[in-house]
């Protein structure tokens, strides 16, 4: 219980801070690095869970997260940005306004979802109350908000990776992890990065198109 309070909860808080940091950035390279750091923190939580439960599955999950999200996603996205990567930013975006909007959206949605659905659920992996589920739920909505609020392909990919991180965090807290979670996490991020890197190559901004209306 002490380890949960002193390590897992602060790490989960740090994950949320990285999510809000990403939301508040206009420069894409800062967003990518924020996502990489968030994934490393998630991998550390998985390692600690492995230590607590004695399961090697968590170790495998941590290795996959580091390889796929912290390194591969970061590498592929930065490579697609080209030489001037420190200068790449999303045009026509009011970061401060979106940040404020994100906070309002998340507070309301997390309050509703948590209080209705998860406030009485018992965790199967760690000795903690259901309160820790606030972290993955918040991260999930933050990822969704990032996808919805930005028009840039890079930003939307990062939002999606955040969403995936949230699901892994939820699964890690809630159930004794089957291999499936690792396989799914691996498949998901790999697929998105491979496909999206092809799209990124030719289309980086997404605006309304007359032919796709209605």
């Amino acid at each position, binding site marked *: 219980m002490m380890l949960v309070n002193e390590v897992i909860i602060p790490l989960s808080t740090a994950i949320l801070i990285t999510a809000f940091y990403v939301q508040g950035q206009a420069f894409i390279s800062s967003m990518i690095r924020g996502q990489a750091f968030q994934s490393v923190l998630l991998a550390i939580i998985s390692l600690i869970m492995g230590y607590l439960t004695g399961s090697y599955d968590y170790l495998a999950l941590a290795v996959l997260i580091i390889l796929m999200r912290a390194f591969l996603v970061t590498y592929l996205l930065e490579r697609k940005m080209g030489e001037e990567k420190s200068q790449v930013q999303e045009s026509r975006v009011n970061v401060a306004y979106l940040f404020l909007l994100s906070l309002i959206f998340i507070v309301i949605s997390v309050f509703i979802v948590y209080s209705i*659905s998860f406030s*009485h*659920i018992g965790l*199967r992996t760690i000795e903690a109350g259901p309160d820790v589920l606030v972290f993955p739920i918040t991260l999930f909505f933050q990822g*969704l908000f990032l*996808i919805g609020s930005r028009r840039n*392909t890079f930003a*939307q990919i990062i939002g*999606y990776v955040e*969403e*995936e991180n949230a*699901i892994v965090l*939820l*699964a890690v807290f*809630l*159930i004794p992890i*089957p291999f*499936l*979670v690792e*396989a*799914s996490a691996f*498949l*998901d991020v790999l*697929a*998105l990065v*491979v*496909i*999206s890197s*092809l*799209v990124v190559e*030719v*289309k980086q901004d*997404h605006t309304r*198109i007359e*032919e*796709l209306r*209605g």
Partner: protein
Amino acid sequence: MNLSEIMVIVLIVLPSSSFVFLRRGMATASAVIASVEVGVASWIYFFPPPVGIFYVTPLTWIFILMVSSVYLLATIYSIRYMEGLKVWISPSHYYLMLNLFTSAMLFSLVINDYGLMWVGIESTTVLSALLIVLEKNENTLEATWRYIILVSAGVAFAFISIILIYYTTGSLSVSVDTGAGATGRYVSLAVGIALLGFGTKVGVFPVHTWLPDAHSEAPPAVSAMFSGVLLPVALYVLYRIYEIQPMPYLYGSVAVLSIVFSAIFLGNQKRYKRMFAYSTMENMNLALLGFAIHTDISIAGAILLLLAHSYGKAGAFFSSGSILKHTGSHKIGRVNGVFRDLPMTGTSLLLSSLAVTGAPPSGVFFAEILIFMALVTRGYYIFFVITIISVFLSFVSINYNVGRMLFSDSSGIRERRSPLTYISLISSIMPSLVGILFLVGYYAMF
């Protein structure tokens, strides 16, 4: 492992094995493989595998039949359609992706594990994304991106449902969980979340927004696969989760709302492929309504609807592809005199349009009657009234637009008869055959 299980593995692996023809003869190999798939699917009907790794019920088999036969039609159609077409990925890679996409759908249908079903559905997104962007331009790229990001986000949400199923039942086995009679708050939550998650791929309002974009911009064969089988496969997975704990009012309300909105969207369509995409949304939600009511009659209606619709909508998209090849326009207002200029394409467009909107003797017509009967007998009068009005409005919208394209003045184009038109015609006739077979079977039973 017995022979039946081996045949199911063959069914899944055979399309993927086409990669050995990547350098040469990919198109022909794909068509041969697709034909063999129909044969393997027929074999599985007579010798289904025992419940274990796979879970193949008569319901599953109908979906397998749909996937394998629409895959065959789409492959043959693609061979001629691709001729002379400027494409972004090579034709060999196009067929490879189409084959892998089919394997992923078949895997999702037969596997006896909710988690792996989810993996299969997620794989279909990845494998089909590049098929949309075949004719690379700004529209196809945007449609592809919307498809990837919206469906991936939605299906990722569905993974929460899978986590909750495992949390509550301690198992991900479809055969175990559907018969376990699990109840409680978190089972309801899992089934509810699945509606929003997998519903993204099924075309449930308001998470349907990728559907018209992807269907309108993809090549006709891919649109036919999406509309005819991909969405039904996602609906099958959703139904398998629904079976754990049926929630008829939640699922029924969402289905009815989606039918209403598809009717509204259909009233304002200016592009014919987009119009057929919204028609798919309407039909999928009618089938969802049939599954949601969860009586023998309504489930039979839903299955009959999906089967007839798969061929009818393939016919509609194949006809649309031929019209697009001849006229070069996506707009309803710019396509004139199809019946005079392109008589065979016009006939297939008319037949398929009538079939998917529920005109007799199409299977969709009898399916709608079954679903409406179930709604009335179970006392869902409000659902019944709203649905029947919406279905009528959709019928009028689609057939009015198709009528404008078919029976207006000639634009002087001459039809180049090719296998494309014959495949369109065969696909358009199939829903009526399904309907007649249903009638014959019905009278034979009683």
